[in-house]
């Protein structure tokens, strides 16, 4: 069965890029190796939510259309729009986002994503008091103690401990001294 390697997970900000996707003969994802529970749930359930039969409104009624018709219609809507906002993207893979940015340029629109809402408070904080920050490399290799405040990597970024802190080896670490 085909194995697609080096896949980037689109779920959280950890951006694990070592995901291996196993696809069955019907082009359906049956396994997501290396992914956390949240990432695996994304890959394994993704096809259930996909819209495989697009609907186009004709004379007030939604009728089934082919994918080609739907893309043509969507393109027409974008071309006819004065100032379209291409919004969302937060669960979209990097490759698709890049196409989205190009599309926004083409149609003279604005591209925006959900982080403007969910990270609104973060930006307000950064603007008012600044931001002491560290790279993930610094966390992994140089930090002795990391305090997580108002964040919960166990649940929100499940592979963070494995990749950068508790279950990872720091370059200068002599013994397992990290805790979370």
């Amino acid at each position: 069965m085909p194995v697609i390697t080096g896949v980037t997970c689109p779920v959280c900000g950890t951006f694990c890029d070592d995901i291996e996707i196993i696809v069955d003969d019907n082009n359906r994802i049956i396994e997501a190796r290396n992914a956390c529970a949240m990432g695996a749930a994304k890959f394994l359930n993704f096809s259930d939510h996909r819209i495989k039969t697009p609907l186009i409104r004709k004379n007030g009624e939604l009728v089934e259309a082919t994918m080609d018709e739907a893309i043509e219609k969507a393109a027409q809507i974008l071309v006819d729009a004065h100032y379209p906002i291409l919004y969302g993207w937060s669960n979209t893979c990097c490759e698709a986002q890049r196409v989205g940015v190009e599309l926004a340029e083409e149609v003279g629109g604005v591209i925006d994503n959900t982080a403007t809402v969910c990270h609104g408070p973060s930006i307000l904080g950064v603007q008012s008091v600044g931001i002491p920050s560290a790279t993930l490399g610094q966390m992994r290799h140089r930090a002795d103690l990391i305090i997580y405040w108002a964040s919960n990597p166990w649940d929100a970024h499940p592979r963070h401990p494995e990749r950068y802190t508790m279950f990872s080896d720091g370059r200068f670490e002599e013994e397992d001294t990290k805790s979370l």
Partner: protein
Amino acid sequence: MKVLVLTGRTIDQGRGKEMGKLSDVYQKDVTQCQIDPEDMKALNLRQNANVKVTTNFGSVVLRAVKSLRGPHPKMIFIAYGPWASMISDPESHGTGMPSLKGMSGTLEPAPKEKVLTMQELVNQLKMEA
């Protein structure tokens, strides 16, 4: 009992949202109210007993579960979802994001009330609107 209400992510909320917000995993997780074990004793609550949480912004019935993250007396946790949204502070301070943590509220046993399903919750909101 007066409590501080926190909302946030859990791993099953994260898994469940990918399975669909109508999935059992999602709905089970986001209808739980995680309570300090000592507070559960004080209120004479068993695991999965129904409780009512009320803040200035609304009230909602949830299932009480013992928090594994304690001790955090007088502090309850509810995973993000429509049920948590019923009692969250809509004030965004201009950031676009509601105040999801630190609401003052009350926690009380609600043996005679039921935890609403997603559909019932939406219907209730429609009625209020």
